[in-house]
């Protein structure tokens, strides 16, 4: 830090900046110059300190004196007392209570310490039902900035330079997408595809927020809408201005009642403040948003199906090109982004593309929100910088696997993603690395599996999901997933044959290449990755008729180990089909003919006497 007597580290994280940290910094520099101390004292901006609630914060090095809740007015006195006269100002200090076993700081807890919040930066801080609280933390400042100081082209340029990519799964560069839509010619032809006659005016362009989060176990978008709905609205407003859109839609799952309620409330409050509607913030920009509820079809997460559903048609994907940017809702140029993508936009405008692109990896910038679920200690919602490893997410943030079991795989990207094995746990989380590992970033579902999960069963479960959700329009997906499911069911029932694995691989490759939309293109991923990394489990099912994890019912038997059985009768009492016999204090026996393999005896035995084979 050079040969300065003091280094003043002023926090310039979002929290402190929204509480005027920059003004405090300017005042400091001014006072230091006034006292001619600039040769001795250096003022440095730092990233977020973690104590956002007490910002603006300043740490004085080398003494580690921690000043909090600073205002411009505090500065002249502080500079004079501390830096000129050498008397630290106690009333501005934060002194934690001395304690032998202090409660840890948030940053000391790996679950929180390894996270970096951008899209979720207001989580747990503001009342989502009160627009004033959002504004108090700097909300709608980015909108004011673009409307009064930036041209649409500059906004698009900023988003492109930031390197923001779609958070819905495919990772398409957001700025590029906006640019296509902005530059698209508006068709005057009322018979354009998708136009049903009750045509909106010819000049219309649309934007859509995809909040139809359909992956089992994923709840990132729901949480953003529940805890910070205005961030989404502000992002959409900025996007609409950049693209030249006149109306926006939020397509949200009907199964999200709380998110829907808070969203509706946020829209009303924004309208009341003139942040939606005509002449927003007194400028010439007009835009409004309406909400449309999805009815639980997974395929509606695919953009062209979603647009079809919005138009009141069957939710089926259609061939692209033309892309929605050329011909989307009602045949008009349409831009569609997911909730998390929109929520990142105000932060990029406020803090600049250079800041955003300084976070993450070469090709994947910023952070990603994941819902961390499955066999992991700390289930929850996490936001991490791109480039963090899977191991850090599962073991540091997630706190590892419960009950001392062994990690087996982590599934990213929901039913469209793949399973990543232990050997690849040090893979950095970015779009390209995950694809290389056979999975996808997806929208952010992350399911952890332990040694008790059978990988054939996992593949069967996900294919049964995509098979049910396949819309049936294209043959590879409709027929292909059905046949894959049949083969997987046979394998898990002990009816697998030599050649099944190769057939699954071949079909998987064909479906990936030929299906019409993202649902079909990705449906084979769970099968292909489990074969790639856990082929021996498939082989055990097919050749030895054995399920190594002890999950597939047709392939396992429960028996009681006479060595360990104490004759406590717990298993016999709990067996739902009364197939366990034995006298008190005598070894019990399971009647294999009657056993339904429910696993109840295994769960209730306190003496580790029930064996699964």
């Amino acid at each position: 830090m050079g040969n300065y007597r003091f280094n003043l580290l002023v926090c310039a994280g979002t929290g402190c900046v929204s509480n005027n940290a920059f003004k405090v910094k300017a005042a400091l520099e001014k006072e230091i110059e006034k006292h001619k101390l600039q040769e001795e004292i250096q003022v440095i901006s730092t990233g977020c300190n973690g104590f956002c609630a007490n910002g603006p914060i300043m740490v004085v090095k080398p003494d580690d004196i921690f000043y909090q809740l600073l205002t411009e007015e505090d500065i002249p006195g502080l500079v004079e007392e501390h830096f000129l006269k050498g008397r630290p100002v106690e009333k501005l200090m934060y002194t934690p209570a001395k304690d032998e076993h202090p409660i840890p700081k948030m940053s000391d807890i790996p679950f929180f310490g390894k996270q970096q919040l951008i899209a979720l930066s207001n989580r747990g801080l503001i009342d989502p039902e009160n627009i004033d609280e959002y504004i108090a933390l700097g909300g709608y400042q980015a909108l004011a900035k673009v409307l009064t100081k930036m041209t649409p082209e500059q906004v698009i340029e900023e988003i492109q330079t930031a390197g923001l990519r779609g958070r819905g799964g495919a990772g398409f560069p957001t700025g590029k997408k906006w640019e296509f839509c902005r530059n698209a010619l508006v068709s005057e032809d009322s018979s354009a595809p998708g136009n049903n006659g009750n045509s909106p005016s010819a000049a219309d362009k649309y934007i859509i927020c995809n909040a139809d989060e359909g992956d089992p176990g994923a709840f990132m978008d729901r949480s953003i809408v529940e805890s910070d709905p205005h961030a989404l609205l502000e992002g959409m407003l900025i996007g609409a201005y950049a693209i030249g859109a006149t109306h926006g839609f939020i397509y949200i799952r009907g199964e999200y009642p709380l998110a829907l309620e808070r969203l509706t409330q946020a829209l009303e409050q924004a309208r009341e403040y003139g942040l939606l509607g005509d002449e927003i913030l007194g400028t010439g920009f007009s835009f409004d948003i309406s909400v449309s509820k999805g009815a639980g079809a997974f395929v509606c997460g695919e953009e062209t199906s979603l647009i079809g559903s919005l138009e009141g048609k069957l939710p089926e994907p259609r061939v692209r090109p033309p892309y929605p940017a050329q011909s989307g809702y009602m045949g008009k140029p349409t831009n569609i982004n997911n909730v998390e993508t929109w929520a990142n936009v105000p932060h990029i405008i406020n803090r600049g593309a250079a800041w955003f692109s300084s976070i993450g990896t070469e090709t994947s910038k910023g952070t990603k929100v994941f819902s961390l679920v499955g066999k992991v200690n700390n289930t929850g919602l996490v936001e991490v910088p791109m480039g963090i490893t899977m191991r850090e997410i599962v073991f540091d943030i997630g706190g590892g696997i419960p009950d001392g079991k062994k990690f087996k795989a982590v599934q990213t990207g929901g039913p469209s993603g793949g399973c990543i094995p232990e050997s690849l746990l040090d893979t950095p989380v970015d779009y390209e690395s995950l694809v290389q590992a056979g999975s996808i970033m997806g929208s952010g579902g992350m399911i952890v599996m332990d040694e008790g999960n059978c990988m054939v069963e996992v593949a069967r479960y996900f294919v049964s999901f995509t098979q049910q959700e396949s819309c049936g329009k294209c043959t590879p997906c409709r027929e292909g997933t059905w046949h894959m499911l049949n083969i997987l069911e046979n394998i898990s029932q002990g009816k697998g044959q030599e050649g099944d694995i190769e057939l699954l691989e071949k079909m998987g490759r064909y479906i990936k290449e030929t299906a019409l939309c993202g649902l079909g293109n990705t449906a084979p991923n769970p099968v292909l990755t489990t074969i790639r990394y856990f082929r021996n489990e498939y082989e055990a099912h097919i050749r030895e008729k054995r399920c190594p994890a002890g999950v597939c019912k047709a392939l396992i038997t429960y028996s009681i180990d006479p060595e360990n059985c104490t004759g406590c009768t717990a298993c016999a009492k709990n067996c739902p089909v009364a197939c366990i016999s034995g006298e008190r204090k005598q070894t019990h026996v399971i009647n294999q003919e009657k056993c339904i393999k429910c696993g109840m005896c295994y769960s209730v035995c306190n003496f580790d006497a029930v064996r699964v084979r």
Partner: protein
Amino acid sequence: MKLKPEDLNKIRERMKSTSRLREAEGKAKINVHLGTCGIASGAREILHTFLELVEASGADDVLVTTSGCAGLCKREPMATIEIAGQAPVKYVDLTPEKVKKVFEEHIKGGTVVKEYALAVGSERLG
């Protein structure tokens, strides 16, 4: 009221006193995390218990508010307690009984209830 760009700053100023607890001394803020995960594990009951305790104590300088999921869904219901001038404290796995103790000892007495507290401070932003 239709806002103009400069009105945003006026709202920020007006909100500071409530969002930062700086102006009035001795104020405390109770923030119950009311996301779907919190509600499912009983956060509404936690909120009501706090409200009843505040009312019964006659305290007019304790603010009860709500926000979304705090991230660690497994440890819901959660609440963040902030006494003016001190770092916020996150409490986890709350029950109405624990809430009573937290209210008596931390909010009224000023001593953090260590056995129910997860951490002090806030999260790393941006």
